[in-house]
C-alpha cells in the first residue's frame, strides 16, 4: 500500500493517459457505426452480411489484432494510434449490432406516421428513429465503453502507455500493489464513466426516466447484448 502512496503521481499520470486513449475510440466507434448500422437495417440483404462480419471481427483476439494492424496500416506497434484504431474497430464491431437492432425496433407504424406528418427521410431518422432507438443504442454504447476501457490495458504489454504499464512493471518488480492498483483503477474508471453515460442518457432521453427494467419489460435485444457481443 505504501507503494501506491509514494507513486501516486505516476499512477495518476497513467490513469489520465488511459482515459485519453479509451474515450476517443468509443466516440469514433459510435459515430462510424451509425451509418453502417443504418445501412444494415435499411437493406435487409446487407444486414446478415454486416452483422456476420462484425461478429467475426469481434472474435479476433485483441492482442493479435494490435500486432497485425501495424503491418497493415504502417504505424508502429507501440504507437497510440495503433491502439486507438484497434479499439475503434472493436467498438464498431460491437456497436453496429446495437444500431441495427435499435433502428429495427422502431415500429413501421411510427415511421409511417412520421412521414405522414411531413418529416423528410433525414429528419425522420434524426428526430424519430434515433431517439426511439435511443435506449438500445445506449445499452450498446455502455458495453462498448466498458470493454474498451478494459481492452486498452492490453496495450501495456506492447509498451503502449496507459494503465496496462502498471501490470508489466508490477510483474517485473514483484509489486503486487501496483498490479492491484491497475486493476482497481480500470474497474473504477469503467464504472464511473458508465454511470456518467447513464446520466447522459437520462438527460437526453427524459421519457425513459422512471422506468426500471422489469423482467418482462426488458427486451430480448438488450439481453442479447449481455450474451453475445
Amino acid at each position, binding site marked *: 500500500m505504501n507503494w501506491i502512496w509514494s*507513486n501516486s503521481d505516476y499512477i495518476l499520470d497513467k490513469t489520465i493517459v488511459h482515459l485519453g486513449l479509451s474515450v476517443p475510440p468509443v466516440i469514433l466507434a459510435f459515430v462510424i457505426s451509425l451509418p453502417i448500422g443504418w445501412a444494415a437495417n435499411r437493406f435487409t440483404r446487407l444486414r446478415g452480411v454486416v452483422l456476420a462480419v462484425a461478429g467475426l471481427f469481434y472474435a479476433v483476439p485483441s492482442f493479435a489484432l494490435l500486432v497485425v494492424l501495424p503491418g497493415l496500416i504502417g504505424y*508502429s506497434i507501440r504507437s497510440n494510434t495503433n491502439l486507438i484504431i484497434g479499439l475503434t474497430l472493436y467498438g464498431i464491431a460491437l456497436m453496429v449490432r446495437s444500431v441495427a437492432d435499435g433502428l429495427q425496433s422502431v415500429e413501421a407504424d411510427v415511421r409511417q406516421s412520421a412521414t405522414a406528418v411531413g418529416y423528410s427521410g433525414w429528419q425522420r431518422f434524426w428526430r424519430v428513429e434515433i431517439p426511439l432507438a435511443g435506449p438500445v443504442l445506449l445499452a450498446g454504447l455502455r458495453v462498448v465503453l466498458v470493454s474498451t476501457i478494459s481492452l486498452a490495458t492490453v496495450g501495456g504489454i506492447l*509498451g503502449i*502507455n496507459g494503465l496496462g504499464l502498471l501490470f508489466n512493471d508490477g510483474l*517485473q518488480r514483484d509489486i503486487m500493489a501496483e498490479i492491484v492498483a491497475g486493476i482497481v483503477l480500470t474497474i473504477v474508471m469503467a464504472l464511473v464513466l458508465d454511470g456518467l453515460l447513464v446520466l447522459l442518457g437520462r438527460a437526453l432521453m427524459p421519457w425513459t426516466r422512471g422506468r426500471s427494467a422489469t423482467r418482462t419489460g426488458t427486451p430480448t435485444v438488450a439481453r442479447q447484448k449481455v450474451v453475445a457481443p
Partner: protein
Amino acid sequence: MITANKKGRLTVLGAVAIGAMVALAGCASSDPLSSGDSSASGDGDTLVIGSQQYYSNEIIAELYAQALEAKGYKVDRQYQIGQREVYLPELESGKIDVFPEYTGNLLQYYDKEETAKSPEEVETALAAALPDGLTALKAAAASDQDSYNVTKEFSEENDITSLADLKNYSGTLTLGAPPENAERPYGPPGLKSIYGVDVTSTPIDDGGGPLTVKALTDGSVQLADIYTASPLITENDLVTLEDPENMILPQNVVPIVSDKVDSDAQDVIDSVDAVLSASDLQQLNSKSQTDKESSATIAKDYLTEKGLLDS
C-alpha cells in the same frame, strides 16, 4: 412526439456532452496521438531521454536525466518504450536523444552474425555497426547480461558450478528464460553446440524477475536465465554458472546518443558511466526490486552520493 423545443434541447445537450467528452479526452493527455509515433523533442536545448520497458534500464536513464538536469540541461523523459525497432529509428531521426543500451544485444540487433566475444571486442564492433546519426559513448563497467543460474542445493548436490558441468547431469533440464532467449546463439542452441547440453525451454516473460526465480526455487525449472545485475540472485542464494567458453554475450551499459547531444552533454553522461560499477548497478536494482523505490528516488540518492548532482 419530439417537439421543436425538445429537439433543440436534445441537440444542445448532445453537443455539450460530446464536446465535454472530447475536451476531457483532449486535455487528459496533451496529444494522445503523438507520444509514441512522434515524441516531442521540444525546443533547441531540451534533450529527450528514453528507456526500455525494463525497470533497471529506466533507473540508468534517470541517472543520465538527473545528471544532465543538474548541469542545466532541460530533459524530457520518455520511458518504458518496448522495442528497439521503435526507439532506434527515433534516436536516428533525433526524436530521442539519449538511450541507455547494452553492448551485446545492440550489436546483435545490427549484426546478427557478429562473433565478438570479450566486452572490449563487443564495444568496438558496436561502434562500427552503428548507423550514421547514432553514437555510442564509452561503455560503463556495469554490465547486465544473461546468466544461467541454479539453486544452491542443486549446485551442491550435483557438483555443478559451471556450464561445462551441466552435461554430466543425468536428469532432464528445463530452462526458464525470457522468450527471446530461445533463439539467441547463447540460448538452448548454444548450450547444445558449445556445452553439449540439452535443455527444454519454458519462456517466462518477467525480465528474469520474481516468476523466474520462484520457478527455480520451487523446482519447476532447474536452470534459469537471470540478468547479472538482478538483486534476486544473491537474495535467493542462487549460483551463477561459469561460462568458460564465453558463450554469453557481454552486455555492458552503453549510452547511445543522437547528433543533438553536444560534447559537454556527452561528458556529463560519461561521468555517470565512469562510476557505475557492476555492484553499483546491482544495488540500484535492489532498491527498486526489493525496496520498491521509484527510479527517480534511486537515481537522486546515487548521484548525490557520487557527487554528480553538484552543478
